[in-house]
C-alpha cells in the first residue's frame, strides 16, 4: 500500500507539469493583461503602463516567463498579485477559511439530504416517493446554480428577510463572540443550502441502487427467513453495507471543498476562493488565477488518490499494487 502510494505520487509529477503548461498558456492566451484595464486618463498614463509591463516582465519571451513562474512555484512561491498588491499565497490564505466553511457546510447538507433520500428510495424503490425523489434530484441537477441562488435570495432574504443576502459576516460583531458565530452561520446557511441541495443527485442514486442490489443478496434473504424485522434488515444490514462504497466518494469532494463555488460565491458576494478566481480572471490577474488553478489541480489529484486508497481499505478484494 505504501509502495503504491509512493508510486502514484511520483506519477503525479509529469501530470502536474503538463497541467502547469496548459494553465500557463491558457492564461497567456487570454487577450489583455492586468494593465490593459488601466486605460483611463484619470488614473494612469501610457508611459506608466509601459514601464510596469517592463518591470513585471510581461514583455519577455513566453518561455522565459514560464520558467520564471515555474521556478517560483516549485519553491511554493506563486508571486505577487498585481491587482491586490500582495503575495498570492497570503491572498489565497485569507480567503480559504471562508471557502472551507462554505464547502464543508454544503457537503454536510448534501450528505444528510442524500442519505435520507437515498435510504427512502432504496427501501421503497419504484414507489411514488421514489419517483418524486429522483424527480427532485434531476431537477436540482438541471437548475443552474445562479438561478437557484437568485431565487433563494429573492425568497429568503428579500421577501422573508430571514437571512442576509450578501457577505460572510454582519457588521458590528466582535470576532470570537457568540454573536459572531451566529452571524457567520446566518450568512453561510443560504449559499450552503443552494450548493448542497443541488448536488444530491449522484449520492442519492448511488445509495438507492446499492440498496436495491443488496436487498436481493443472500444474506438479506437469510435475515428475512429468520424473521428479522424489515426495518432492522434495512437499517442495520443493508444500509451499513451500502454506505461503504459511498465513503470512497469523499476523496473526490476534497477539491470541491477548497475550490469554492465560483458562481454561488459571486452572487452571494461571499469572499472565498471561487469569488477570488472570478475577480482575477476579469482583472487578468494572472498570478492569482494560475495559483488557484494549480491548487485545484493538485487537490483533485490527491483527492483521486485518496479515493483509490479508500477503495482498497473498505473493500479488501481490491488489491492495490
Amino acid at each position, binding site marked *: 500500500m505504501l509502495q503504491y502510494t509512493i508510486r502514484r505520487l511520483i506519477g503525479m509529477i509529469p501530470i502536474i507539469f503538463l497541467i502547469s503548461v496548459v494553465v500557463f498558456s*491558457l492564461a497567456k492566451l*487570454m*487577450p*489583455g*493583461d492586468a494593465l*490593459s*484595464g*488601466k*486605460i*483611463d*486618463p*484619470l*488614473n*494612469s*498614463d*501610457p*508611459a*506608466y503602463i509601459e514601464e*510596469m509591463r517592463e*518591470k513585471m516582465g510581461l514583455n519577455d519571451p513566453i518561455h522565459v516567463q514560464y520558467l520564471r513562474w515555474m521556478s517560483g512555484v516549485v519553491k511554493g512561491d506563486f508571486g505577487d498579485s498585481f*491587482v*491586490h*498588491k*500582495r*503575495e498570492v499565497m497570503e491572498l489565497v490564505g*485569507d*480567503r480559504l477559511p471562508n471557502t472551507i466553511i462554505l464547502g464543508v457546510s454544503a457537503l454536510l447538507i448534501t450528505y444528510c439530504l442524500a442519505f435520507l433520500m437515498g435510504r427512502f428510495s432504496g427501501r421503497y424503490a419504484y414507489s411514488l416517493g421514489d419517483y418524486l425523489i429522483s424527480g427532485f434530484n434531476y431537477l436540482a441537477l438541471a437548475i443552474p446554480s445562479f438561478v437557484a441562488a*437568485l431565487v433563494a*435570495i*429573492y425568497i429568503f*432574504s*428579500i421577501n422573508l*428577510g430571514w437571512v*442576509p*443576502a*450578501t*457577505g*460572510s*459576516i454582519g*457588521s*458590528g460583531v466582535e470576532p470570537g463572540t457568540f454573536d459572531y458565530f451566529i452571524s457567520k452561520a446566518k450568512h453561510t446557511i443560504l449559499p450552503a443550502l443552494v450548493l448542497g441541495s443541488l448536488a444530491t443527485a449522484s449520492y442519492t442514486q448511488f445509495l438507492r441502487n446499492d440498496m436495491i442490489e443488496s436487498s436481493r443478496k443472500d444474506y438479506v434473504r437469510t435475515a428475512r427467513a429468520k424473521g428479522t424485522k424489515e426495518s432492522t434488515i434495512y437499517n442495520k444490514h443493508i444500509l451499513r453495507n451500502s454506505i461503504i462504497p459511498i465513503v470512497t466518494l469523499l476523496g*473526490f469532494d476534497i*477539491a470541491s471543498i477548497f475550490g469554492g463555488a*465560483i458562481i454561488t460565491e*459571486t*452572487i*452571494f*458576494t*461571499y*469572499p472565498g476562493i471561487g*469569488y*477570488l478566481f*472570478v*475577480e482575477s*480572471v*476579469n482583472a487578468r490577474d494572472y498570478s492569482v488565477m494560475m495559483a488557484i*488553478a494549480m491548487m*485545484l489541480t493538485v487537490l*483533485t489529484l490527491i483527492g*483521486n488518490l485518496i479515493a483509490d486508497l479508500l477503495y482498497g481499505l473498505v473493500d479488501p478484494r481490491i488489491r492495490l499494487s
Partner: protein
Amino acid sequence: MKKSAFWLVSIMLIMSLFLAACSKETANEKPAEGDKPAGEAIEGGTVTFGYTQPFKGVLSYAYYEGEDDVNALQFMHEALIKTGDDLTPQPNLATWELSEDHMKLTFKLKEGVKWHDGEELTVEDMEYAWYLIADPTYEGARFANVAMIKGAQEYHDGKADTIEGIKVIDDYTIEVTVTEPSVNLLDNIWVYPEPKHYYGDISSKELPDSEQIRKKPIGVGPFKVKNIVAGEMIEFERFDDYWQGPAKLDGVVYKIIDGSLAQGLIQNGEVDVIEAPKDQWAAIKELPNVNAVEADAMSYSYIGFDWGHYDTEKGVVVSDNQKFQNKALRHAMAHAIDRQAFIDGFANGLGKPLNTPFPSVSWAKIDDSEINGYEFDVEKAKELLDEAGYKDVDGDGFVEDPEGKPFTVNFDAMAGAETSEARAQFIIQSWQAIGLNAKLNGGALKDFNLFYDTIEADDPSVETFMGAWGLSADPDPSGIWLSTDKWNMWRWYSEESDELIKKGVTFPEDESMDVKEHRQAIYDDWQKLVNEELPVIFFEQRIDPWAINKRVQNVKVTPFGTDDFHLWAVTE
C-alpha cells in the same frame, strides 16, 4: 471520468466569464441634491454604502488603483484642496498661493487637523507623500502627479537624494517649485498627505502590503476604520476630532454586493446609498423608499473612425488611412444615428447626446448654438453621401466609393452588458439605412481587454469602434487628443488641434486677463474644430443614477460621487 468532467466544467465556467467580463466606466457626477425627505434627523445611526465590485483593500490614496478602494477611502481621508461644485479647485485642509511667475506654489495648512491616531497633521506629511510617490521603487500610477515638482524626476531616477523643489518653511507652510508654469497645476499636483509618523520606516515598495495600509489605515476624514473584512465590507466609526466637527452618523458600512441583487437590497434596506446598475434603474427609481438622483457624469462615449496608426518610434500618430478622410462621409455617418432613441432604448434615458468631447458639466463646454448638433436626419445623410460621390453604382442597395469600388465599414464594440449586441446592431442598421454596407467586425463583439488590445495594436480590420472616456475636472484634453498621445485611439493627426490644446494650458500674455476666460476662448475654438472635423462621432454623455434611501439625509452627489459625509444623517 470525474476528472475530465471537472476540467470541462472549469473551462466552461472560464469561458462564460469571458462573456461576462464587464466594461469599464469611470463616473463623475454633477452636483445634484436628493429631495429632502420629511422627518427629523436623529443623532447617530449607521448608513450602508454599497458597491458592486469587490475592493482590493489598498487603503491609501497614493497606492489605490480602482473605484472600489477609493469608495472606502473617501470616508476616511481628505486632501489639501478639493474640487468645488464648478469643477475648480477649492481650499480644504489648506489654502494656497501662487507666485507671480507661476513657478512657486505655497500651501498653508490649517492648524489642529488631527490624524485618526491623535497626531496633528503637518506639512511633513505632505512632503512625505511626494517622496513616497517619487521614490524609485514606487509601483503605483501617480508619478505623473508629482513629476512637475522640480527635482522629482531626478529623485525618481535615483540621481538625487532629495527633491530639490520642496521646501518646508514651518509646520504649516510648504513651498513647492515646479519645472514649468501650468494653468492646471492645482488640478494635477498630488495633494493627499500620508501619515509619516504612522508608516515609519516602511519602504515605498512594501507599503501597499503593510498592516498600516491593509488592516489599520488612518486618515484625517470624518470616519475612522473600525473593521475590515477583506473584499466584503469595511466598517467605519465616527472620528470625534474631525476638523469640521464630528459627523452626525455613528458610522458607515461600506458593503460589496452583487449587482444583480441591487434592486432587492435597496428595497429591503440592506443598502442605503449606491450608484445603481443602469439596467435596473427603471425599477429602482420607482421603489417607494428611494430618492432617485440622476447626476450628469464627466464621461462620454464616442464612435471612433480609424485614421491610421501610431508610430511607436517617433511617438506620434500617422493618419494614413484613406477610408475616412472624406469629411462629408463622416458627417453623413453622424447624421444617420438617432442617438436619443439609442439612449432611451438601451440606457433607460440615462444619457444625453453630445457633440464635443466636453460633457455639459464641464465649465469649458461650448454653447450648443455655436456648434453642429448632428441631428438624426436620414435624408440629409444620404444627400451628403451622394454629394461626396458615394453612389450605388451596381444596384445592390449599398453605395460604392467615389471610384466605384465596393465600400464596407467594419464596426467594433465591447461585449459585457445584456444589451451590447443590440446596441451594436442599432448602429450598424442605422448606417445600412443610409446605404453604407456596415457590419460587425469579425461578426462578434469583443470583451473589454480584446477590444482595446485590437485597437491599440492598430489591427487593420478595425475601422470604426465605440469607446468611452471618463474625464477629470480640468478640461485639458491632452492625454487623449494630442497627436503624440498613445490613447489617441482614432489616430487623428491635426497640427491645428495640437496647437490649440497646448495653448489651452498656457497663461494669458495679458496679465490682467482672467485665466479661465482665456482658456474658455481657446477651448471654444478647439471644440468648434473637432465638432466640424468630426474625427470621432461624439455619441452621448452619461448620466449616473444614484439610489439613496429616504431615511438618509444630506447626501450630496458631486462630480466625484458623493460628498459631505460628515453631514449625512438618518431619520430613524
